[in-house]
């Protein structure tokens, strides 16, 4: 998975190193690393939290498909199986409940969007192998999500808070920009219009947040997401409307993120 992964890992490694030294420098002014909690106390407090997230999303976009025969010709769309990585960004607003000395629960709403993925593949069309031809095609996908976002952080009186996260919500997916490299004066090939799909989406993840300066945490995380269905719009071969289109039933992404949390106490 190459460069994007590597970049993410490098950035996150530096952040980790930063998290380690920043708190240490701060800690020299304090006896304890527990900022918000008295060890052993039973108080429940809650405060608003806002999280800014940036990172990468990696997915295999597109799904190979064979259309039913149209006018005696077959259309076989073979998607390039490589993963692609795009940038991801989002924001979260919620409340953190410190309901237990060892556990914090964050609950709130988040919004995420990914910059456009490109799906590529090779179309083989023809009436028989003798007269078939192959054309490269591609289209783009972008996705925005609104989620109910839950995070459970562990507080062990250090400033490190490993967490697990679960979110679900609605994804607004758009498939657009379908292009195919066929010779326009020699033949016709299916062309698809843009399409928006609304789908159920969920996400599971884990990571670690680290207390740093007052009211701020820095964190990194890994998440797995199902963005739901992505589908291009209606297709035409020249002026002939066709019943099939390119569809991907589940767009799965794997995300590596860096997060900045701000708390209001």
């Amino acid at each position, binding site marked *: 998975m190459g460069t994007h992964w590597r970049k993410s890992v490098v950035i996150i490694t530096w952040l980790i190193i930063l998290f380690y030294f920043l708190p240490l420098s701060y800690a020299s002014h304090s006896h304890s690393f527990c900022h918000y909690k008295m060890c052993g106390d039973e108080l429940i407090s809650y405060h608003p939290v806002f999280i800014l997230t940036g990172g990468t999303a990696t997915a295999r976009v597109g799904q190979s498909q064979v259309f039913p025969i*149209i006018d*005696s010709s077959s259309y076989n769309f073979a998607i390039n199986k*490589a993963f692609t990585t795009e940038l991801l960004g989002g924001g979260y607003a919620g409340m953190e409940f410190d309901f237990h000395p060892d556990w914090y629960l964050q609950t709130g709403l988040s919004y995420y969007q990914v910059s456009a993925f490109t799906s590529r593949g090779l179309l083989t069309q023809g*009436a028989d192998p*003798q007269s078939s031809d192959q054309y490269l095609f591609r289209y783009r996908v972008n996705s925005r999500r609104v989620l109910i976002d839950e995070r459970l952080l562990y507080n062990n009186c250090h400033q490190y808070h490993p967490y697990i996260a679960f979110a679900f919500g609605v994804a607004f997916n758009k498939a657009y920009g379908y292009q195919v490299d066929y010779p326009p004066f020699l*033949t016709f090939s299916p062309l698809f219009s843009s399409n928006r799909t609304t789908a159920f989406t969920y996400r599971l993840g884990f990571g670690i947040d680290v207390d740093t300066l007052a009211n701020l945490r820095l964190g990194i995380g890994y998440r797995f997401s199902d963005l739901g269905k992505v589908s291009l719009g209606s297709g035409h*071969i020249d002026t002939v409307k066709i019943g099939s289109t390119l569809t991907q039933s589940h767009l799965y992404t794997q995300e590596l993120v860096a997060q900045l949390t701000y708390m209001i106490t």
Partner: protein
Amino acid sequence: MIKKTVRQYIVLILMTSLFLTASNTLCYALPFSIKTKAGTNLPSHVVEGETAIAYYTVANNTMSLRKNNFVKYLPPKVQQVITDNNFNDICGTTFTLQPKGIAGSSCTLKLLISGAVNGNDPNPRHHLFVCFPGGATCSGTEKGAQNTLSVSVVSFSVIAVGAYNDDSNITHPLLLLGNKNQNDWSAVSIPIPSNFSSSGVFNTTICTGNVCIATGEFTSGNDKNPLLVSQNSGINWSSGSTTLPADFAADGILNDIDCSGTNGSICATGGLYSNGLTNKPLILSTTDTGITWFSAPLTLPGDFISEGQINAVSCTINNCIGVGSYRNVTIKKPLILMSNSSITSWGSVSTILPSDFVNNAVLNASFCQGSHCIAVGSYSDGLAIKPLLYFSNNNGSTWTLASATLPANFSTSGFLNNTTCVGSRCIAVANYRDNHAITRPLVMISSNTGASWSAVTPTLPADFSSNGFLLEVTCTGANCITVGDYRNNNKQLPLILVSTNSGTTWSPVSPTFPPDFLNSGYLDAVICNGNICAAAGDYVNSQNVNIPWMLASDDSGTSWKTVTSSLPPDFVSGGLMNSVAAPNK
């Protein structure tokens, strides 16, 4: 990540290339292969107000029977035609094709073009597409300029034919079209026989209605072969296919052509061929205005021995005649062949020779209208060469020697090269040598359809000194024009004589000369359509190269101007024009 994607792409592209190169016939493998039909050319021009025809071969490129295919898109101004006289595999409105490789896997798509066609139209739906019945699986025309239909509209009013040399000194037949205003001529591409090697020339051309034909010969290896092309509406020229006489061995030459009047589809072209031993008259005929030709049996004179040839052909709606000469051992005699009404056979017609005939009789020109025909040439009386004139009142079945009064200063070398009649007024032209050994233009006229002739003395240019020749004469009503050349003291100049009284008196006219005219210019042909006239010949330019020379007049020949002509891209030298014709005359 990216490197892996790029690697995958390279593999995809390589696989695609391998797959595509494995498809043996096309750059893209498509359900149909659509190419210009072999043996035909796509038209590049269409005459304004007329139509042109294009033929494509549509072949099934799949291994299955394909039913009910159809033409989905055509360029604007182009329609599909489903009937044809020449091919029996014309694609219908819907057509079925057998699997590739089996008989019946292709059909001939015939298109009728009635206007300009933009071969570079960016809209794919303005190009030819053939589709399966659903209209989604389709093929366009294969790539390549030879398959791309691109037509511009021209108006042409006259054609001229001849020859030129390329830079390897190979002689090619030349065909020029003059536009409607006659202020521009352009060379038109003509189909070249596959066995052409050199010495191609058009000797004669004619138009019947709006179809024009040109004939001549070309050399293939060591043999001369007849050359026939015709323009089947529009300005695309195709080779005429012909049968040749059974004893044809070599050297076929075609000298003259005529068709049976306006819109007549019957034409005959005559010349000679060699049967390996000697030359014999050659006549090829067509009943479909030049698409297919046949060699009808000729019955030659009983005393024919050798050197038979046809120099001129004339046709009416009744039949055709061919005139020339042949040899009976040592005597050269006039030859007249007459066809039946369907030109499927020709028989020799005997003629009475002049009382002072000794030898070397030849007929060079003929003219027929209604049931009247005239034939002119020359013969020798042992001392001088004198004009020879015959006439017939029964479509050429019998011929009578015409009486002729020669010029007072006639000495010898009297030839007649061309003749024409309007009603009962006939004119015959060429040259003679006078009693001062000066070669002068010879003009003879008849007012009784060629029964008797007298010489007239045309007024010659003031600087005439010698070597005056006349090669063609044409009349429109009482206006007549004859062209040739003459010598002033140091140049050979074009000779144009105009008459307004059916040839009784003539005056010389001088054309405007091309700016690079050097010292010689010749005119070989002239034609008028109403008061618009065209003359063709050649001149030597300042580089000492022979250039085709086209002249135009819009006042029945009273004044002439040189018209520029674009020549074939491989023209180098040796340009000459032999004949002109006008459509819808």
